[in-house]
């Protein structure tokens, strides 16, 4: 920090430096009102050590790129106030769990997004041969609301980092990808229901989930992947019994 120490109270932040191996390095940062965890990380990078690597884009909770582990809990840092997490004036910030660390606070999210592909998390229009038709789906209808329940995912990876099944079985598709498949299974305009269910039922799919609800407890958008996965369990069992899986 340049020159005089500010008179305000200070915060000690310990930030992970390194890759899979490294150490938590303490930094002293002035504590401000309404400061977010991302503000603190940005301050360290701009004023104390420009080599600190981290990722963010929108700063308003839309892009899903700023998630980190804050005091042992995965969080979106641009919308996490320091007041909420730094009871004793200490904050420990690390990269997300369950993804390879590129450097410091930046993780490689490729495996996370690859699994969306493997889970067939793509919309497949049902009227492939006549794309000019216009699907009428009343927004208030039950089916549309079921699909909407999981649609607001920002792909931040918080749920994936919180899930122990991902840690135990590195192939497990994880809460976000399965939540995405569930919205497609519920989407009446989607024409690949069978493929979606088959992908969700794989060796690494919904039946591996233990419903311990870490994903829904920490999802910053308040989504409920546990319920989505429970829905997939029910629907895959139905199609298994019908011999369609």
């Amino acid at each position: 920090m340049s020159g005089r120490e500010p008179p305000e109270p200070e915060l000690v932040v310990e930030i992970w430096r390194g890759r899979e191996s490294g150490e938590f390095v303490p930094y002293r940062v002035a504590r401000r009102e309404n400061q977010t965890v991302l503000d603190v990380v940005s301050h360290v990078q701009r004023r104390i050590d420009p080599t600190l690597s981290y990722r963010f884009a929108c700063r308003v909770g839309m892009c899903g790129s700023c998630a980190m582990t804050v005091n042992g809990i995965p969080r979106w840092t641009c919308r996490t106030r320091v007041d909420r997490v730094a009871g004793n004036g200490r904050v420990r910030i690390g990269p997300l769990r369950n993804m390879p660390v590129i450097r410091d606070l930046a993780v490689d999210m490729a495996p996370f997004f690859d699994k969306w592909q493997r889970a067939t998390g793509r919309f497949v229009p049902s009227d492939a041969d006549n794309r000019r038709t216009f699907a009428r789906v009343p927004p208030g209808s039950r089916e549309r609301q079921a699909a909407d329940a999981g649609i607001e995912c920002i792909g931040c990876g918080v749920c994936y980092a919180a899930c122990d099944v991902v840690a135990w079985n590195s192939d497990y598709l994880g809460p976000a990808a399965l939540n995405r498949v569930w919205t497609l299974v519920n989407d009446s305009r989607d024409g690949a229901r069978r493929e979606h269910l088959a992908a969700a039922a794989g060796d690494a799919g919904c039946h591996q989930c233990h419903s311990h609800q870490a994903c829904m407890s920490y999802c910053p958008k308040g989504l409920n992947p546990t319920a989505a996965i429970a829905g997939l369990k029910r629907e895959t069992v139905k199609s298994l019994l019908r011999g369609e899986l």
Partner: protein
Amino acid sequence: MTGRLEAWLYVAQRGSAFVLAPLVVVHLATMIYAIRGGLSAEEILSRTEDSAVWGSVYGLFVAAVAVHAPIGVRSIVREMTPWKGRSLDVAALLFCALIVVLGVRAVGALL
């Protein structure tokens, strides 16, 4: 294929759980009732001997446990140890067989 196996195991696990739930309630109730005033071989036998009801209840119980327990233990081993694959599946089947054999002997002895 493995996806179908996992899905069938899921069905077997939850299906056996549905069967086990009422049986465990009965078992807990009998146990709490039976230990009043002490337990003896004679006393257990007087309740179960020649009883088709107890015979089928315990027979069903053993069958459901033989399905439920090996699947659960297999999941734990797969997640918490490096052991996976065919050999683990065979071991789970052997565990199932062990429960069936011991269970048939026990139920047979009670009747």
